[in-house]
């Protein structure tokens, strides 16, 4: 068990990040903290891809540069795309938060709920 943790600590980090992210989304009533949680959650998944592409002592697969072993660049490229998607999502989410704050004057989910039921 300890062995597994020492050799696979990167996957442990993935689990921790995903867990913290999900807790951030569900545990906090603050909308901005929820978005931060979402980002942490996504970063955990990005780390999973990136770390899975890591090969001890490997070189980029460029012909004539090194004899190998080679690491596949694909997971990193995929995650570049996913990071772009994540940034766009954060931008849209923050734009919505600005509108919500203008309308309700608070970012607290419970307070917003209170305002809505009073109206």
């Amino acid at each position, binding site marked *: 068990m300890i062995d597994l943790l020492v050799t696979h600590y990167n996957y442990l980090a993935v689990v921790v990040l995903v867990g913290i992210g*999900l807790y951030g*989304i569900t545990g906090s009533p603050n*909308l901005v903290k*929820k*978005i931060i949680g*979402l980002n942490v*959650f*996504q970063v955990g*998944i990005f780390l*999973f*891809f990136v770390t*899975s592409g890591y090969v001890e002592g490997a070189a980029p697969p460029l012909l004539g540069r090194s004899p190998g072993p080679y690491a*596949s660049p694909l*997971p990193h490229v*995929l995650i570049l*795309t*996913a990071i772009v*998607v994540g940034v*766009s*999502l954060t931008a*849209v*989410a923050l734009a*919505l*938060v600005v*509108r*919500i704050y*203008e*309308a*309700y004057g608070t970012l607290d989910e419970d307070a*917003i709920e209170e305002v*809505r039921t009073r109206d």
Partner: protein
Amino acid sequence: MTDALPLLVVVPIVFALGPVAVGQVRPNAGWVAAVAAALAHLGLSVSVLGTVLAAGRTSYAVGGYAPPFGIELVADGVSATLVVLVSVVTIATVVYARAAGPRSNTFYSELLILTAGISGVVVTGDLFNLYVFLEITGLATYALVATGRSPAAALASLKYLLVGTIGASLYLLGVGYLYISTGSLNMADLAGLLPEVGYGSPTVLTGFALIVVGLSVKTALFPLHTWQPDAYAESPDSVTAYISALVSTASAYALFRVTYAVFTPAFDAAVPFALDTLVILASVSVVVGSVLAVLQSDLKRMLAYSSVSQFGLVVAGVAVVNETATLGGLVHLVGHGVMKAGLFVAVGALATVAGGRTVDDLAGMADRAPIASAAFAVLAFALVGVPPAVGFAGKWHIVLGAVEAGRWIVAGVAVVSTLLTLAYFARVLERLYFRDAPAPPVAEHPDAAAAADADAALTADGSGSAGDADEPAAPPTVSTTARIVVVAAAVGAVVLGVFATDLISVLEPVVEVSFR
């Protein structure tokens, strides 16, 4: 012409730039661009369907990189049919939005990006590419939901964004598991590689579970549906019609694709409990969705919960892993898109005239808006499953297939859902046809006032009725475009039902291959 495949995605995106670029100079550029893009999209999708009907499955290697390494776009009977559905619903929505609004140029840009995203989900043959298109679809949908200028719409949109992103991220994680165990992202390639790794391998099973949960969030199956009623209820009518017809449909299609093209029925034979679990989830969704729909007084919420139930039925049909049931699920998927879009447009149109959109507001509306009411009735009965409409064809095949496969639970659930569907539509039809309209000034009525208040943002900038909707000085009427769209949807639902066997013969080759 296989080049039409990438153009299905490229054309709407390019046209989406137009309204933003020239919007300052030409305020109505959005609508023109949207019409042009929708017509071009229809032409392309019909040409793709023609190619598929003549030559079978066609594929396109993006950037010239041969499939297992590059991204592949694939058209077969199922995706070609859905692409045509996307074009038709886009045209209908653009026509309806001219009168109903929202009128801004950015609205049309977002709509076209959404069209591109959905087309991409439908034609892609690559799991990671599917993730990207799912997120393009998601981003455009979040923005569209928020175009209803009310703060409630922004809240609904943010809720949808949080839940939808978790769903898409779980899907991405699932794709990661499959990629790690096989080293491939191409669907057709994965179908060959997965048996070599072993369907029972924990990595593959976890990947399957994550993908299914992620796509179920996007499809809005029961315990994961929480984003959907708010998003449907708070967005403008034209947006609701569009996303109810296509967004969840695209995710349900992705679920079908992953189950049949990546995991194949051999997976079900090797690990039966995986899809058994999905059948149970879907069946619960059917029943609970219908019951929640019966409990709603707001019409848009009622239709939203009805979608939860109908998509449960589609997924149940797919998860039964029986040729007949799968075809039934796909027919219902296509039919539901047409019917639900029509129903939402009808509700939007009737609500404008009635001044509110609760069930009681519709009392006696059949006299004031006979065409919209009649079309609503036809669509309602079509969704209930009265022959010859398309709702019947879909449900009939699902039940037939479920019985063939010995899945009595699905057959039973389909019948129960039909009764519950009748229950929630009967309430509305009774108000429409057998109640007298209330005395003219309804402003004092608290329910109507609240509903009209919630609607104020929509009716003020759309609908063509000047001033408040709850002050019927000059009684508003259903706009001509809304009438055309609703009637077209009603006719479409019946025609699709009559020609259901032809539809099935287009879809069949795709499903057949999996069962050989």
